[in-house]
């Protein structure tokens, strides 16, 4: 379990979605909060691609429905912390 990726991903979520400090990022799901709506999702995807140097395909963008899914996805793509 690479916590380094999780830490970086948490940072990306906070910054891209402009999350308040008290949000439980690890347990966040799409549409749980108003910042992570379909428009926020576009910003988030672009920020993840920039941070980790990856390109997500359409299925991945659509399936990325929670912080945990995003983390699993990056790990399965071989991204290293």
């Amino acid at each position: 379990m690479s916590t380094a990726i999780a830490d970086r991903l948490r940072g990306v979520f906070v910054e891209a979605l402009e999350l308040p400090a008290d949000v439980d990022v690890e347990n966040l799901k799409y549409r749980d909060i108003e910042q992570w709506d379909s428009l926020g999702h576009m910003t988030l995807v672009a920020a993840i691609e920039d941070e980790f140097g990856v390109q997500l395909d359409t299925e991945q963008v659509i399936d990325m429905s929670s912080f945990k899914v995003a983390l699993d996805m990056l790990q399965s793509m071989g991204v290293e912390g």
Partner: protein
Amino acid sequence: MTVATSVFSKSQAERDVSLLQELTELTEHHRAASVEYRRILDAIGHPAGRRYERVADLPWLPVRLFKHHALKSVPDDEVFKVLTSSGTTGAEVSRIFLDKEAAAAQQRMLSATIQTVIGPNRLPMLLVDTKALFKNRRSFSARGAGVLGMMNFGRDHTFVLDENERPDLDAVRGFLAKHGDQPFLIFGFTFMAWLYLYELARDEHLDLSNGILIHSGGWKKLIDQAVDNAEFRRRFAQDTGLTRIHNYYGMVEQIGTVYVEGPSGNGLYCPDFADVIVRDPVTWEEVPVGTPGVIEVVSTLPRSYPGHILLTEDRGVIHGIDDGDWPGKRFSILGRLPRAEARGCSDTFQGAA
């Protein structure tokens, strides 16, 4: 990663068999789940257990019904999203209820459909619209929602129009300098693609030859310019190099189902889970290939609301069956029904035998 398999693969004969079975099952599902729908079926002579020989025999609802009735087949506490669309008549709004499963299914099938045209990877994307669409984050217009839905298929999203809805030549030039030498996606409503992108590209000699344009929305606003589908394609190709053009047809009442123009531009095609039937506006009988009439759309996607068999308010014609770029029916939309006829549709839905 993921390999997109075409959703334009079934011959008409295969489709007729699978759709009859699935749509009959869906009809029973909605009958059991929606009291209003059951009442409508009873009233128009489609009691439970009736057997059907053809998809065209299944009971259709006029699309207008969704403007007047909250038809849904899920309990209130499972409604995840309510989609609305203003029709051409302004004040009337359709309300479409999706649960989580239906919302995911429509997104998945739309995605599979669009990927048939663009492939599995997200492409650099030029949007023939303005960012100002999203100014009010809590309430997007129907246009905004349509644009947002398509943005999943792109990356490096670039808007052709600035915040004041004026063409942003620098932005377009910058996009083309960065991405113009590889396939890129262009999305926009038909009239905007023509008024803002075509004219800009022609006048400024922009090279769109690696673009794939996906557009929708109809030709009504271009009547003054005498631009129809053939002219649209011809002039984009001649003046901008853009030849990969796909018009599509769809409506919020069958969200996730889109009918896509084939590569050669000879008509719209139905994805494997959907079909169209053209009906005579007086007798409501199915008309033969080549005869214009009213378009009925069927799709196996609507499970959370009874929108699987809908009579639209659009006129159309089927040009051929299993004879084009992709299998199944090949058709065109001819425009909206005149108002009188449109009213006729909803008044006479009881006539569906």
